[in-house]
Every structure is written in structure tokens, then in C-alpha cells.
């Protein structure tokens, strides 16, 4: 038999006098400790950045394949000026390599959600021909301009999440998502610690100008230094990284 003098808490009855102090201390501690913990964790998180969707845009341009598809705009909109270079992706964790490759070098009409973050512009294409189809008009792929070999410090991200489809779209917490996106042929980008030729980000390819190699997946979302050749395609910088030079920074 339990001790009848031992106080026992029943939620719908007044609290026993012997337990009131314990109850008050517990309640206050819970509120303070949980609040402080939330504040502490929240204050350590990085700013998710200004990336965001900017609504549907439809432009015309010329397709270029640089491992991943881009379009050099020949007929823009109020938001996307003519001459801009846009990276292309499809919905979900899918790129647009298969859709754009057959149209390489041709004039196309592109329609989809514009994602913007700083100098990074990406279009998430609408489904089917509504998103990407051959169009009338003239245009040519601008001549690439080699900028030499560089050593950069920064982070590999997937271009779509970083551009604003997810917030935050970078960092270790986002690593698995980024790897899945890039495995789905969404173009990866290198976010540089400081601007390179005026740009904080560069589209990333393998050393041969193809898709990002395996080593890039392993280094995704970590702060690294890496060497590679930079080439300007239109107004887009492309970084053909040399995976043998990847070094994880402290």
C-alpha cells in the first residue's frame, strides 16, 4: 500500500501544497530552457540568403550544352534582358539535359519559373513542349572566353536549391538533397568565397567540360579549395574543376 501522506498530483484538482514549488520551478525551467535552447540553435544558423522564385518567364534563346544546358537569351523580357545566360533545369530533382541536348545550337523558346540569387539565374522549365521547344529566329552561341586556371575557395551546391527553390539551399544539412539534385542532372554551382571576375558563383563541370565527377559529390556542401579552368560563356562563368586538387578547408 502506498503512503497516504505522500503528495500526489492530479491534473484536474488543486496542486498539493508540497508539490507547488516543484511544479512552478519545473514549468519555469521548461519554458526558459527550451526557449534558450531554441534561441541558441537558431542564432547559429546561417542566413538562408535572398534566393527566390520570380514567377513564370518566357524567353527565346540559343541552347548550349556545357555538361549541362544553358540558354543565351536573344529575346528577353522586362526581367530577363537580352544577352543574359540562363541555366536550365526541370521540375523536382530533374535536370534538362535530355530535353535540351537534341536542341543544342538551335533557337528555342523557354518557359518556366525563374529562380534568382545574385548573378545566378536559373529557369525551372515547364513540362513538355510548353517548357522547351524549337522556335523561329536567328542566334548563335557566343564564343567562349577562356580566363585561365584558378584556385578557388568555397562550396559546391546544386544550382537549383541554391538559387532559391529551397531555403536554405546550401550547407551540410542540405548535402543529401544537393547530391540527389546533381545526380538528377541539375547543374551544380561553385559558390566562391570572394567574387571571381565579378561573380560569386560559377557553374561547375568536370575537367573535360562534362558533368561533375564523383569527387564533387563527396565534397558537396563542405568548404573546400579546388583548382580548375574558368571560361566565360555569355555572361556565365563556367568552372571546369580538377577533382584531384580538392582540399577540405578547416
Amino acid at each position, binding site marked *: 500500500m502506498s503512503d497516504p501522506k505522500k503528495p500526489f498530483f492530479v491534473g484536474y484538482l488543486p496542486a498539493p501544497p508540497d508539490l507547488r514549488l516543484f511544479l512552478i520551478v519545473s514549468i519555469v525551467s521548461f519554458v526558459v530552457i527550451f526557449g534558450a535552447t531554441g534561441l541558441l*540553435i537558431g542564432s*547559429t544558423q546561417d542566413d538562408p540568403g535572398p534566393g527566390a522564385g520570380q514567377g513564370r518567364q518566357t524567353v527565346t534563346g540559343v541552347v548550349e550544352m556545357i555538361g549541362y544546358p544553358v540558354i543565351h537569351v536573344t529575346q528577353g523580357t522586362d526581367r530577363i534582358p537580352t544577352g543574359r545566360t540562363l541555366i536550365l533545369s526541370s521540375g523536382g530533382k530533374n535536370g534538362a539535359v535530355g530535353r535540351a541536348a537534341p536542341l543544342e545550337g538551335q533557337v528555342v523558346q523557354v518557359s518556366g519559373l525563374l529562380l534568382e540569387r545574385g548573378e545566378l539565374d536559373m529557369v525551372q522549365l515547364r513540362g513538355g513542349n510548353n517548357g522547351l521547344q524549337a522556335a523561329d529566329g536567328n542566334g548563335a552561341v557566343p564564343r567562349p*572566353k*577562356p*580566363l*585561365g*586556371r*584558378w*584556385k*578557388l*575557395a*568555397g562550396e559546391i551546391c546544386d544550382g537549383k536549391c541554391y538559387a532559391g527553390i529551397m531555403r536554405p539551399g546550401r550547407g551540410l544539412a542540405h548535402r543529401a538533397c544537393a547530391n540527389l539534385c546533381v545526380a538528377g542532372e541539375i547543374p551544380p554551382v561553385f559558390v*566562391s*568565397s*570572394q*567574387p*571571381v571576375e565579378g561573380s560569386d558563383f560559377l557553374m561547375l563541370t568536370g575537367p573535360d567540360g562534362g558533368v561533375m565527377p564523383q569527387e564533387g559529390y*563527396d565534397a558537396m556542401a*563542405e*568548404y573546400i*579549395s579546388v*583548382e580548375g579552368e574558368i571560361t566565360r560563356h555569355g555572361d556565365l562563368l563556367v568552372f571546369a574543376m580538377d577533382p584531384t586538387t580538392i582540399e577540405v*578547408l*578547416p
Partner: protein
Amino acid sequence: MSGAETILLLVRWWLIIGAMISVAFLFIGIDRIDEDARGAYIFRPLLVPAILLIWPLVLWRWYVLEAGREIWSKHYRPPRASHLVAAILMAAGIGTALFLGLSNRQTWPADIAPERLSAPGEANE
């Protein structure tokens, strides 16, 4: 081999070993250590998923019962006796994980400027 590949390989081997043990246990062991299971077969496939995961415990219990080292009175010891220790360890574990996670983060290399190693057309050093 990357970290992810290593983890997948370990998981695969854990499940393969678990599958072999589940076959041995459900065809042989269970009849030897549990007389109530003798002649009953339909329920046995239901045990397979759990054996795949906790096969070391299955092996240990099989050995204890088979060797006659079972202490029956242990069954009646309230399992809650260890709850306080488990709760303290879990709380400490959460705190430790938070501390390590927050203190072991990389620092954004804001002070490292891009370095041009060679101009276009130059041989790479």
C-alpha cells in the same frame, strides 16, 4: 571507398548475416528453445524482419537458452529499473551531439581570395 559506400556495405552484410541466422533460427533454433513453437509454422515468417535487425540478440538468447544459462527470475525484474540511467544518458547524448555539432563546424573561407594560377593559353604549372 566513400563513407556512404562503406555504410551501405556494412548494412548489406548485416542484413545478409541476419538472413542466414533467421533461416537457421526459424528452421532449427526456435524448436529447440521454445516448446510452444513446435509444430507452429505460419507465424515464423513474421519474425524474419526483426531477426534481420537484431540477430546478435537472437544469437545471444539462443545460446543462453540452449546452454541452460537462463535465469528465469530475471524476467520479472522491472525493466523500468534502468530507465533513469537511460534517460540521463540520452539527455547527455543530446547535449553532447548539440555541442559537437555547433563547435565542429567549418568556417566560411571569406578571407581566401580567388587566385589566378595561369592566364589563358599558358601551360599549367
